[in-house]
């Protein structure tokens, strides 16, 4: 077995928490159950990984199998990576039959014609996701297995999720190969990024509970904002206001769980407006700001701002549009004309 492959397998196993190593190796499927039985998972990780490498040697593992182990690891720990969303565009409307073999062939062909040294690996999952791993080399160097790019493609959709290699120059080539292989003619990056791959899918595939702006008369009377107090001396002063906020929140966010995003970023290039009495800044140029919101679960957090008294209800459309506009990076400029208070996001 090639010693770089051995080292790569060893290091990959070391990344896995000890309790998960057996499961990961089973998911990988390269070592037989009998071989796995011979491993002692209670020893130090250093030793476990050495033993795994020995077993791989017995099976003459090559870089292909090692790459599949890496995909298995990254599929399991997908939320460790940052994912960006790309949308592909077709010229015609025809829904062509997707042929996975053709896709793989064209993808590999496109990459290999540009770059001789690449390692390309595919793995398909039950949810119609095709995971692609590409390790990049140069005409003179073997591929760097430690800085690969990962692509997740759902063939029934025009969306591709990319966790790019730190070798940034590889991205254009990767995009090209994708459109060639999938018979699209263009690809663009959406302003949508997150660690939570599933949430990105929820957003672009519209899998979260949305509310379509229908009016619900007498909404949610049965659903109390707060549990009734047994003590009748305690009276809710702002009950109607609380209910109004609750209803507006429900209208905007829906009743179900929100997609999990960690941040949203707004580049503001709008004018600074103030009460003329204050006698402050009155420039004709934009007041340039960069605002970032971050949270373990951003949308849930924003949803709770108005009920907490921290924000007005309804919340600003700049925030509530995140899921249905499928973006969390925005550039906001002043909208000229009739409605000076509204904003334009290009």
């Amino acid at each position, binding site marked *: 077995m090639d010693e770089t492959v051995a080292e790569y397998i060893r290091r990959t196993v070391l990344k896995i928490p000890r309790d998960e190593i057996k499961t990961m190796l089973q998911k990988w499927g390269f070592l037989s159950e009998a071989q796995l039985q011979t491993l002692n998972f209670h020893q130090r990780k250093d030793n476990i990984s050495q033993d795994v490498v020995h077993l791989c040697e017995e099976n003459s593992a090559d870089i292909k199998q090692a790459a599949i182990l890496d995909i298995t690891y990254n599929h399991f720990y997908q939320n460790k990576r940052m994912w960006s969303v790309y949308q592909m565009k077709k010229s015609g409307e025809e829904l062509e039959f997707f042929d996975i073999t053709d896709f793989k062939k064209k993808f590999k062909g496109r990459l290999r014609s540009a770059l001789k040294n690449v390692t390309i690996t595919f793995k398909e999952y039950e949810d119609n996701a095709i995971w692609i791993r590409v390790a990049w080399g140069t005409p003179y160097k073997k591929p760097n297995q430690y800085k690969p790019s990962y692509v997740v493609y759902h063939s029934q959709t025009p969306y591709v999720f990319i966790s790019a290699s730190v070798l940034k120059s590889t991205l254009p080539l990767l995009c090209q190969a994708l459109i060639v292989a999938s018979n699209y003619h263009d690809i663009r990056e959406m302003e949508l990024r997150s660690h939570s791959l599933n949430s990105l899918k929820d957003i672009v595939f519209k899998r979260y509970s949305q509310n379509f702006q229908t009016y619900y008369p007498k909404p949610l009377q049965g659903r109390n904002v707060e549990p009734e107090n047994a003590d009748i001396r305690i009276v809710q002063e702002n009950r109607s206001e609380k209910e109004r906020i609750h209803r507006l929140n429900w209208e905007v966010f829906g009743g179900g769980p929100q997609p999990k995003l960690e941040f949203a970023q707004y580049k503001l290039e709008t004018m600074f407006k103030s009460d003329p009495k204050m006698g402050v800044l009155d420039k004709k140029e934009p007041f340039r700001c960069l605002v970032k*919101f971050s949270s373990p679960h951003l949308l849930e957090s924003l949803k709770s701002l108005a009920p907490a008294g*921290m924000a007005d209800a309804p919340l600003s459309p700049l925030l509530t549009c995140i899921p249905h506009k499928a973006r969390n990076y925005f550039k906001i400029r002043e909208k000229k004309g009739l409605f000076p208070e509204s904003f334009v996001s290009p």
Partner: protein
Amino acid sequence: ENVDPQKTAFLLRKAWTLYSVTPLYRFHRARLRDYARLLSAFIAAEKQKGLAVEVGVELDIKVAVSSLADLRGSEQDQAAVLVQLSLRSRASSRNSEDKLVWLGWFCSVYGDDLSENVPEDFTCLPLFLTHGAESYTSMVGSWFQKTFDCCFRRLAISPLNLSWMVAMWAGCKLDRAASAVELDFSVPHLSQPLDISYAIHPEDAKALWDTVQKMPGEITQEEVDVFMDCLYAHFHRHFKIHLSAAKLVKVSTAVASAHCDGIVKILHSQYLPGVLMLLTELAISQIQ
């Protein structure tokens, strides 16, 4: 007032943890080398007791205590005192350099409010700044407390003081391209905590402050409030969120940055005295 930038370069671009210190009893500047020896022995004893900071290799801690004559505000201020802890490996030869592991310095910049009112035997150096492992800070602090009967307390910086800092520093004139004026807020008590970072282009922030400030060289609470209200209003216009109800946790500008837990980074030597003066004032109000 004119501090030699060479001598104070080491203060810049480091994150300093701030403490207030009550006046030191019978601290004698002539005995700095003795103090260094005693502190060194104290640290060695603490490590023997099992409070070692390094595992594995046995290392000597070398202590240096010195006076920084230039680091003060007025003539009434005591000159700053610097304590340096270095590691010297026993295994190393003579030429190997000692590795600086911890720095701490006491200072007073226009601390007259305090020094005017203390008896003679006391030395006022109300501000203590440290950089390095907490375990060393703890040992140095304990020794000073025992030896000079003083008291150390972490210096928290309130949102009110942070707003003063950001308003002041946003207005500073800088020759080079400056970094953004950034305010970091936290909204902890939600179902999911939320952090908000609000960064303003330094030219625009300065332009705003310039129209708010009435007399150059003078800042009033009202002006700081107006400045902050403007920023809050601009934010509310876009997001409908009341930023004033969130907790201001950190402010950063090209001059300096400050965190509410009492951590400060000074980036520009030109404004070093101004920043230290403000921090001395905070330390004194915590003591009194």
